[in-house]
């Protein structure tokens, strides 16, 4: 049986770990490598590094950070932010990432998704969607959740799957950093893409993980609650397990 995944989300800016609220702000939490090692030791299932301002400044500095991290972190790592070409993706994979995440560049040139998938395989291509509630649906945003794209999440999630994405990493902008639980309606909504979905934005306590699992996602991303030690992985896993959700138990 496929296990429900717990993913530590590390938003990066200038090689420092930051924590935003509703995807805004640059409050520094600390050294990302140190946090990655901590989550690795605690038995997190995956880590995702997102350079949240890479597209804003038109640059890409994640590879260097990955180099520093991956020598002693063995948890699978997804890295994204500023990936615009197959070469950018290659640089991240060479630096030790297992998957690459892409948002802004895919919005601008959707064919990039196919190029990445053909080169590295769909399993290595995560499309990140920053979703903002608009009326009855959601709109995709790019450039660190600053820029509306005019793309409806309902269409976009299906399109990226057809173009070869292997996974969706979906953040509810309105929930991010707020701690009121995941947007489970959004989670169910993007399930139509028929590829694995990780939902992000809003986790604060174990019951939020159960709600997300029941909404049909295959994993959840946790940031602030882990960075500020408000919750332990053990507690989340125990709660999930008690609710009948299969999880991997760290030894």
């Amino acid at each position, binding site marked *: 049986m496929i296990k429900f995944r717990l993913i530590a989300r590390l938003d990066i800016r200038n090689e420092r770990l930051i924590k935003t609220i509703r995807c*805004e702000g640059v409050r520094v939490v600390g050294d990302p490598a140190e946090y990655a090692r901590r989550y690795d030791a605690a038995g997190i299932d995956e880590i995702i590094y997102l350079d949240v301002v890479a597209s804003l400044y038109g*640059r890409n500095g994640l590879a260097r950070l990955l180099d520093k991290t991956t020598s002693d972190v063995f948890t699978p790592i997804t890295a994204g932010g500023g990936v615009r070409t197959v070469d950018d993706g290659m640089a991240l994979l060479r630096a030790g990432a297992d998957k690459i995440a892409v948002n802004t560049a895919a919005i601008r040139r959707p064919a990039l998704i196919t190029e990445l998938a053909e080169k590295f395989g769909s399993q290595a291509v995560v499309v990140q969607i920053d979703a903002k509630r608009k009326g009855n649906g959601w709109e995709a945003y790019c450039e660190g959740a600053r820029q*509306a794209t005019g793309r409806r999440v309902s269409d976009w999630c299906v399109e990226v799957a057809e173009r070869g994405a292997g996974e969706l990493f979906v953040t509810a902008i309105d929930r991010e950093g707020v701690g009121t639980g995941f947007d489970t309606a959004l989670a169910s909504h993007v399930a139509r893409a028929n590829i694995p979905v990780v939902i992000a934005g809003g986790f604060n306590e174990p019951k939020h993980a159960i709600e997300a699992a029941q909404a049909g996602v295959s994993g959840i991303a946790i940031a602030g609650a882990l960075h500020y030690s408000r919750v332990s992985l053990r507690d989340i896993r125990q709660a999930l397990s008690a609710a009948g959700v299969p999880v991997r138990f760290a030894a």
Partner: protein
Amino acid sequence: MNYPALWSNDVERRIRKKASNLDEQVSPKDVRFCRVCIISNQRPRIVFDADGVCSACRYAERKRSGIDWNKRENELRRVLDGVRDDGPYNVVVPCSGGKDSAFVAHTLKHKYGMRPLCATWAPLIYTDIGRRNFDSFVHSGFDVVTATPNGLMNRKMARLALEFYGDPFLPFIYGQLAWPMHVALRFGIRLIFAGENGEATYGGDTSANDLPSWDAAEWERIYMKGAGVRKLLGISVASEACSKEEGASQTSFHSLPSFDARQQAGLQFHWLGYYLPWHPQANFYHAAEHTGFEPNEARSEGTYSRYASLDDKLDGLHYWFGYLKFGLGRCTSDAAHEIRDGELTREEAAALVKRYDGERPTRHLAECLDYLGIDDAHLQMIENRFRASHLWNGQTLKHAVYDQVPSDRAA
């Protein structure tokens, strides 16, 4: 919203004719950029030192290392204790519901045990997000007295301010300053606490950099930009846009209370930023956590930020005209202070400026034009009138900071 005609065709003709004969604004002809941030010497009242560093950066430097903040906080407690037994309210806080004013009100109330009465000067045209943040702020537990000035008079003033000073936002700026003083006088409150001293923090007059407050006379001198409500009203009356009596009564809250009234009441206007390190980023987190503040759904036009100055549909034009007059747009202002706060490098800031600074605001343009009683062609004529000739080659800036900051990363 329905916006009726501002005035008769005759008045409109008189105003256009008079405005077309304006002299060009005077600012330094040689354009220089601060070597630490990205602001230029075109910013009104800013001072550069012999090393080419602007007064705002020097002030930020001093705040980082040259100030005993414990001592300042003790001073703050003394000031607050001086009025603590006044009642039922003991301090007025000018409040929009934005992150900065929410931080001031919340901190004074919850950290220092004050009983603030918040004074809100309504935006010229509320944005949805601005209104929501204001309501959330009130519901988080604050008493607020709001002034919603006569809408027609506000529009007349905004239009005249646009024609004659290249800034439709002036009536808001006047009222935002004056209204809290009226509230204080009427409710018998002696102390007003605002956020930061904008002149010191963002570059301008440096005379109060080391002062906790400004005296009554300084306000008129510094803030009225050589215009002031009376001057604007003078133009209005001379063009028969309103009668003298009408104008005087309908702008009484835009105008500072008389010097004597302020002196007699012993009114003190302090900046919290003098007593505590002032940090807009931190204010955002504080307001998001305590007063229900939400950033805008997308970045503001002309900049990258989602959380600053977002409650008035007119403020896009305010920043846009700053860009035309001084070559310094909204992104430059935002990025300059984030450099000083240690959140951006100069290269990052230059890249952002290149990308966003010259963006003409269109999101609320149609409504702004209705509000101001003009069409887009007339607005563009006014824009061209305010493009300073030493800064512009047609629509291209002659001196841009991103052409000077050497960086391969600022692509």
